[in-house]
């Protein structure tokens, strides 16, 4: 136990830096995935045929192949097409593109749940289709999506661990380094497991807060416990 604590203390700064990189990857992947995912969801629900088809194909493609394969295609594959990206940029891109596919499905579900009647109400006062989507549908759909969408930041944070395979210095890379320096793999990986866990707990608390903050008074979306 004291060995393990020593290891944790010795590599603490290193782990902290790695955790910072992991959080950065998560944040950028999440934001990129959200913006792209929102576009895909809108394309699938409201788009014309080609747009709807494109969104569907994108989602199926990126959900249907492993993140690691996508990462390697971007980092090792693209250079053969004359596009060479840095390790960090490749990591951002892979995480963002991959996350977009999942986020699109969460958002699409919420948009469909808001339904066509709100669209009717918006159009009836003279709002255009796009204005209604922007001012009426999305503000409600995004709130409605939060509980299920909350999976995505947590899954994404843990998925970022694959980027150490293209030598991005994230938390996982730091763990590997600690393991090889100390010859104590179990201690090293356990230590970063704890760091991951702490980050997920913190993220969870943040998401819970967001869910409460976004609640519309008198409009119960999550259903009360034991109301039946």
């Amino acid at each position: 136990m004291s060995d393990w604590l020593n290891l944790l203390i010795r590599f603490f700064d290193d782990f902290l830096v790695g955790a910072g990189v992991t959080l950065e990857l998560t944040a950028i992947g999440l934001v990129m995935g959200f913006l792209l995912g929102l576009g895909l969801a809108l394309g699938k629900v409201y788009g014309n045929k080609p747009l709807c088809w494109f969104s569907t194909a994108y989602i199926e493609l990126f959900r249907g192949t492993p993140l690691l394969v996508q990462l390697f295609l971007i980092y090792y594959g693209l250079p053969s097409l004359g596009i060479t990206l840095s390790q960090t940029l490749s990591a951002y891109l892979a995480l963002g593109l991959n996350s977009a596919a999942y986020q699109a499905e969460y958002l699409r579900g919420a948009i469909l749940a808001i339904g066509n009647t709100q669209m009717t109400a918006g159009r009836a006062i003279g709002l255009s289709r796009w204005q209604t989507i922007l001012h009426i549908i999305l503000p409600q759909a995004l709130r409605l999506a939060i509980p299920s969408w909350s999976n995505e930041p947590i899954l994404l944070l843990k998925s970022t661990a694959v980027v150490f395979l293209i030598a991005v210095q994230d938390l996982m890379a730091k763990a590997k380094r600690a393991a090889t320096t100390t010859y104590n793999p179990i201690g090293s990986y356990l230590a970063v497991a704890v760091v991951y866990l702490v980050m997920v707990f913190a993220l969870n608390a943040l998401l819970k807060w967001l869910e409460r903050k976004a609640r519309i008074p008198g409009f119960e979306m999550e259903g009360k416990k034991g109301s039946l």
Partner: protein
Amino acid sequence: MTNKILTIKNLTKIYGDNIVFQNIDLSINEGDTVVIIGPSGTGKSTLLRCINLLTKPNGGQIWLDDEEITSKEVNEDNVRQHIGMVFQNFLLFNHLTALENVKLGLIKVKKLDKTAAEAKAFQELERVGLVDRAHHFPGQLSGGQQQRVAIARALAMDPRIMLFDEPTSALDPELIGEVLEVMRKLSLAGMTMLVVTHEMGFAREVADRIVFMEKGSIVEEGSPEDLFNRPKFQRTREFLWKITELYGKKEQEE
């Protein structure tokens, strides 16, 4: 000199094999309240949705004032802001307060600045007696209050005509009165209104003209006096008899 606000000629709506209504002719004068009655499933609601261009008719024409709104060159969004619509299920924007519900169209469609929009929105809420509920969300309002906000939201756009699609059908009986009262006042104030309803008391008292629709066509129309006391057709008589048997006893006692 009466001014025709809405003119409908030969309007037809067909879904697949199902003829919702056919060859409807109807016109409404400025300031008039016209009530459409008839059994459910006769296309009354679809007719209103067609007038507001929320549903495309298969044939026929509609004029709002002198403008043919069924013509292809017309900007639908532009037309809709001149036609107020009140729905059976209120359809308030659930994420906005009563005030914001009324304000949104003023800002986004009429392009009023915030202060002007707010003043106008308060004025409309005043008209439906809900200034004290301005900052409540729809989920915090009763059905009757929600419907009154919906009326205020439509009125805020200064429409040429207001369409009401069974505005009290989703309400608890004790809440119907407050909505009908708002509509009655509106009618007296000279608003042009086309109302689909089963509230015969309202139709009798407020309507300038009643239109009886059945199976996708207009069977007869006339003043409340004529229609209730001297219906020309057996079908009208049967419908009125059925519906007054259901609701009428209470009115006779009054």
